[in-house]
């Protein structure tokens, strides 16, 4: 009741504010970026233009990633925050109840006509209405070094696990380590395999109920990783300390890594590699339920606390960042995907990912839902590292998970 009341008050205030306070509005924006990151620099540019055009002053607090520890307590305590950003799942799911509903304002600017449909859909799924506006989106799959694929004579991107293994064999014969894997993404890779076998909903059930021993898909997914290990398809440093292993793509030693569209940019800055990094969709597996066109798509998102008195002005600023020239500039300067579908021009670095992204038909959560049960997260991380190291067989991995969940 309280929340609804607060929401109504906020709405009323917002309407009255926009009516009278034109030109005198001051917004406070808590940002997940640090002031010197490329994203921060691009956003600051958009903000400056916005201020010049509207006269609305914007105070930015560059909080960095630790915003997650402060934003909720700040909203609870009623601190003046008119907009903030963070991972879009956290904004919608964890904070959704404390944010302004943006459906009306979004309708007024036909937001849904130009947004990447999957992103607001995910927000609505978590928060039951549009409580956050996604931007800086990414998609996922298997990133690969195009030159190595050519040198190994691989003509078509693998669509099934068998084709993937065949490709690995060719790469190995050509003198490349097929797969890189860094510690930060072991759950990501396993999550992909697991979701291909049993689908994301079943993944969530599995981590919550903990019946690992009975779940055939869980074992099969682990066996695929064991397979990569025993066949020698993982590079020497697997699992590397992020980003050590992934850097192999740029150093010319390793051909592929399961990750997301930020990899080309990371490889470029880490290794000064100037060739092309492409992406194809994570292959389907035999007997699995999901096709190879499902992928984890994600973004950062802006939210407007229900306590904000300047919701409309904050929303206008958000729109300046997520659509039109602002969005395009942000994408270009940070080498990320544009999230306004009217911006068809992609950063050159991501050209090799475009076909894969356009072919995608379904959306997974971060880690394909493996994070649903926070309490086994650390256990899963450790046991997966062991699986990738070869210290665990697939069966031992399942046993360890079963034991930890009981």
């Amino acid at each position: 009741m309280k929340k609804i009341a607060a929401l109504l008050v906020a709405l009323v205030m917002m309407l009255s504010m926009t009516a009278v306070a034109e030109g005198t509005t001051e917004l406070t924006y808590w940002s997940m970026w640090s002031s010197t990151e490329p994203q921060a620099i691009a956003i600051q540019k958009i903000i400056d233009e916005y201020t010049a055009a509207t006269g609305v002053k914007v105070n930015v607090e560059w909080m960095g990633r630790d915003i997650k520890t402060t934003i909720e307590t700040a909203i609870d305590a009623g601190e003046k925050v008119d907009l903030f950003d963070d991972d879009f799942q956290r904004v919608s799911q964890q904070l959704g109840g404390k944010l302004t509903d943006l459906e009306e304002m979004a309708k007024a600017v036909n937001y849904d006509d130009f947004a990447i449909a999957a992103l607001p859909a995910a927000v609505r799924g978590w928060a039951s209405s549009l409580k956050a506006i996604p931007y800086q989106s990414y998609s996922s799959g298997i990133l690969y070094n195009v030159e190595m694929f050519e040198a190994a004579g691989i003509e078509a991107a693998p669509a099934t696990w068998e084709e993937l293994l065949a490709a690995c064999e060719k790469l190995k014969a050509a003198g490349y380590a097929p797969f890189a894997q860094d510690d930060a993404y072991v759950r990501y890779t396993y999550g992909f395999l697991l979701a291909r076998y049993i689908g994301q909903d079943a993944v969530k059930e599995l981590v919550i109920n903990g019946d690992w021993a009975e779940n055939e898909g869980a074992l099969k997914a682990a066996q695929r990783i064991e397979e990569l290990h025993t066949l020698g398809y993982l590079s020497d440093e697997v699992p590397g300390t992020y980003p050590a292993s992934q850097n192999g793509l740029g150093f010319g030693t390793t051909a592929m890594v399961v990750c997301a569209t930020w990899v080309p940019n990371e490889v470029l800055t880490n290794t000064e590699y100037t060739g092309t990094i492409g992406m194809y969709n994570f292959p389907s597996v035999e007997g699995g339920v999901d096709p190879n066109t499902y992928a984890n798509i994600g973004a950062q998102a802006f939210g407007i606390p229900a306590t904000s008195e300047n919701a409309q002005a904050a929303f206008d600023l958000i729109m300046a960042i997520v659509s039109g020239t602002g969005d395009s500039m942000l994408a270009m300067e940070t080498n990320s995907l544009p999230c306004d579908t009217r911006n068809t021009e992609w950063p050159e670095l991501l050209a090799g990912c475009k076909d894969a992204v356009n072919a995608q038909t379904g959306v997974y959560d971060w880690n394909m839902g493996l994070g649903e049960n926070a309490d086994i997260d650390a256990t899963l991380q450790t046991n997966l590292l062991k699986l990738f190291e070869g210290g665990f067989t697939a069966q031992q991995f399942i046993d360890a998970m079963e034991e930890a969940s009981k």
Partner: protein
Amino acid sequence: MKQSKGMIVAFLAPAVVAFLMMFLYPVTRTVIMSFFQVESVTAKTDAWQFAGFNNYVELWNSVTFRAAMKNIMLIWLIGGIVVLSLSLLFAVVLNSGIRGKSFFRALVYMPNIISAVALATMWKQFVFVNANYGLMKGIWKTLGMGNVNWLGTDMIFWAMLIAFCFGAVGYYMLIFLSGIDRIPADLFEAATIDGANKPRQFVHITMPLLMGTLKTNLTFWSISTITFFVWSKMFSPLNTDLTTVTPMVYMYDITFGTQGNVQRSAGGGAAVGVIMALMILLIFMAVNALIRDDGIEY
């Protein structure tokens, strides 16, 4: 001497207020909060729900917390043995009359003045990540550990502990040194005249008279390891990992939430604090019961 009540009050009041606000109030509140179900640290007390020992039971059932407890005990025990014996060794060596005592003393203490973040980065990057190349590879090879993956799940904990101990030794060495310095020199002179050699002097004079200092060191060691946080963060920066998690990291995670983790429990965080404080208390009592400080005044 003339005593003025007004002056005593005025001089003491700020310090006492600081104590009440920074220690007494928070400690009391933490203890109470640990028996309530509280989601957000900032929740008003009327939003607290009494939960009995529920928070403690949940901690006990959490795999991550149990791992954190195991880790902190290993850090305390193994790290303690390594750090205290190394620092005692250094103190004795420095006191044996070698040249450059104050230089070496400053050298061993130096890591303590460096930001832990910087120190951990140095260790992690140079000794462990870089283990596959150049100089460190040679050193590890001669030690017979050429193929150890230091940052793998089996070794990362030990890598972290070694690096932590390197930084810690200096502090305890200084305290041992000051303890040894306070042993009257004539005791050693008398022993030398009686024909006792250095090792015998160490066992029969230095050690017994250092018990009080050892107690001090054990106390400090316990307090500083209980709040083990930044080293764990440095060695597992992106994901909390069973191999390196400590109670403080766990408390931070459940109080503020982590990526993809929606549940938070400030009550649980408070319970972690209470358990840690109880552990320190237990250690104090054990140390006091086991180590007899004969109260020799020098």
